[in-house]
C-alpha cells in the first residue's frame, strides 16, 4: 500500500484544469510505473490511454487489475508489446501471449481471487489497511498469509492495494471529473478511481459540470485528477475464448 501523495500537476483545459489529451497525460507515466487499471476481459479499459502508452513505449510497467485482457484489447496490448513486467490479476486466461510470457519468465504474475482483488483495491481507496476474508481458506491462497481471529472465526488478512497511477474508462464525464459508466464496462473502474493517487479518466463524452444528474454519478469528481475526452465507441468485441 502506497500512502497517498500529492499528485504532480499537469496544465489541463476546462474550468478545473483537468482536461488533457492522452499524449499530455503520458507525462505522468515513466518506465517502471505502477498502475491500476479498470476493465474486465475485453471491455472497460481506456483505449486511447493504452494507445498512448504503446506509442510512448513506457516500459517495465507494473499493473494491477482484473485480468490480462486480450492480445488485441485492454492491457493485453501492452503485454503483447512487452511493456509489462509485473501483473497482479485474478486470471490471464483470455490472453495466450500473457500465458506464454509467464511461462517464459518474462512476465511476473501474481494471482489473487477476483473478489479479494476487487476488495483489496477498494480498501486501498477507502484508506483501510486491508481486508479480512475467509475466501481462499483451505487452498494454497492462504499460504504465507497472516491469519486474524474475529469472534472466534478465522480470516485471512489481505493487504490493501493502492498505486500511484490509475486509468479508467467511463461513458460520460464532466469537466470536474464526475463519471458515469455504462453497462458491465463499469466493472473495476469505480474502485480503481478510488485507489490511485493520480487518476486519469478517459471518457467517450465530455460535458460541462452541472449536466450530469448528481444521483446518477458513479464516481465523484473529487477522485479524478485528469479527464481525457474522445474515447471511441468500439465497433465490436473480440470473440470469447470459449
Amino acid at each position, binding site marked *: 500500500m502506497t500512502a497517498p501523495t500529492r499528485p504532480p500537476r499537469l496544465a489541463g483545459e476546462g474550468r478545473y484544469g483537468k482536461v488533457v489529451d492522452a499524449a499530455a497525460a503520458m507525462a505522468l507515466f515513466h518506465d517502471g510505473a505502477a498502475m491500476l487499471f479498470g476493465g474486465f476481459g475485453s471491455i472497460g479499459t481506456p483505449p486511447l490511454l493504452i494507445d498512448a502508452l504503446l506509442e510512448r513505449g513506457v516500459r517495465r510497467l507494473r499493473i494491477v487489475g482484473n485480468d490480462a485482457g486480450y492480445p488485441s484489447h485492454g492491457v493485453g496490448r501492452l503485454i503483447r508489446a512487452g511493456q509489462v513486467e509485473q501483473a497482479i490479476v485474478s486470471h490471464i486466461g483470455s490472453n495466450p501471449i500473457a500465458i506464454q510470457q509467464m511461462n517464459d519468465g518474462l512476465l511476473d504474475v501474481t494471482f489473487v481471487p477476483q473478489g479479494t482483488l476487487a476488495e483489496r483495491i477498494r480498501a486501498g481507496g477507502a484508506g483501510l489497511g486491508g481486508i479480512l476474508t475467509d475466501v481462499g481458506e483451505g*487452498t*494454497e491462497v492462504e499460504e504465507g498469509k497472516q491469519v486474524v481471529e474475529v469472534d472466534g472465526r478465522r480470516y485471512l488478512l489481505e493487504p490493501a492495494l493502492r498505486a500511484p497511477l490509475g486509468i479508467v474508462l467511463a461513458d460520460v464525464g464532466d469537466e470536474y471529473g464526475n463519471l458515469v459508466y455504462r453497462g458491465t464496462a463499469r466493472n473495476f473502474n469505480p474502485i480503481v478511481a478510488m485507489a490511485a493517487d493520480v487518476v486519469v479518466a478517459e471518457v467517450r463524452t465530455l460535458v460541462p459540470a452541472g449536466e450530469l444528474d448528481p444521483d446518477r454519478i458513479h464516481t465523484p469528481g473529487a477522485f479524478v485528477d485528469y479527464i481525457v475526452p474522445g474515447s471511441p465507441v468500439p465497433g465490436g468485441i473480440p470473440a470469447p475464448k470459449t
Partner: protein
Amino acid sequence: MDARELIARRAALLLEDGELVALGIGLPTLVGNHIPPERRVVLFAEDGIAGIGPRPAQGEEDVDLINAGGEPISRVPETAVFDSALAFALVRGGRLGTAVLGTMQVSDRGDIASWKAPGGPSPGMGGSMELAAKARRTLVLTRHRTRAGEPKIVERCDLPLTAPRAASVIVTELGLFQVTPQGLVLRERARAVSVDDVRAVTPCRVETDGPVVVMEDVLERGVGGTTDGRAEGGRV
C-alpha cells in the same frame, strides 16, 4: 439425449423460483437454456450484473454488456448493473443462491479442484473461489470421467483446491449425488445404468438412502426431483 444435455437439463430443474444464480463457463452455461420459464431465476455474472438475458443476434450486441466469460448478453426486466466489488459483496454476503460450476475434480466431501490442471502453470482462479465457497448452494456439473477415463469424483482431490467442502450436489451423466457429512448419497441414476454400474466407476463410497430415482423420469415430470441440495449435507 447426450451426456451434456442430460446434465444441464437435470441441473436446471434444481434452480428455484426467485433465486440469484451464477453459471460457470462451459457445461454450466448450457443450464441457462433449460430453466423452466415459470421459474423466475435471475442470472448473475461477477463482472457486475444481475439479470442476464440471452446472447443477442449477431450485429445487435451491446458493446458494453458482457458476462464474466466475455460473451455478449442482453438485459431482462430484473437487470441491475454494479461494480465488481459489489458483485462479490453479493456473493460473499450470502445473496447468491446457487453457483453452478464445472470442475476438474470433486471429492466425496465436496472439495472442488477446478483452477489448476495437472502440469504447467494455471492461468489463474478468476472468481471461481468466491463462487464455489460462498454461494449458498454449489452445484457441480461434470462428466463422470475425463476423456482419458480418469475419475473426476474422487476420495481426495490431488489437484490444488478451489474451495474445500463447497459442493452440495454433483450431477454427472450417470447420476445425481448429494454430498452429506457421511459422504456421497446417490439420489438419482441415469436410466441406462444401475446403482452398481455407478459404483463401479466411482472410486469412493457411494451410499443410497431410500429409492434411487431415474434422472430421465425427473426430467419428464419437470419438477425438482428428490433433492433440492439443501439437506443436511454440504453447505446450504
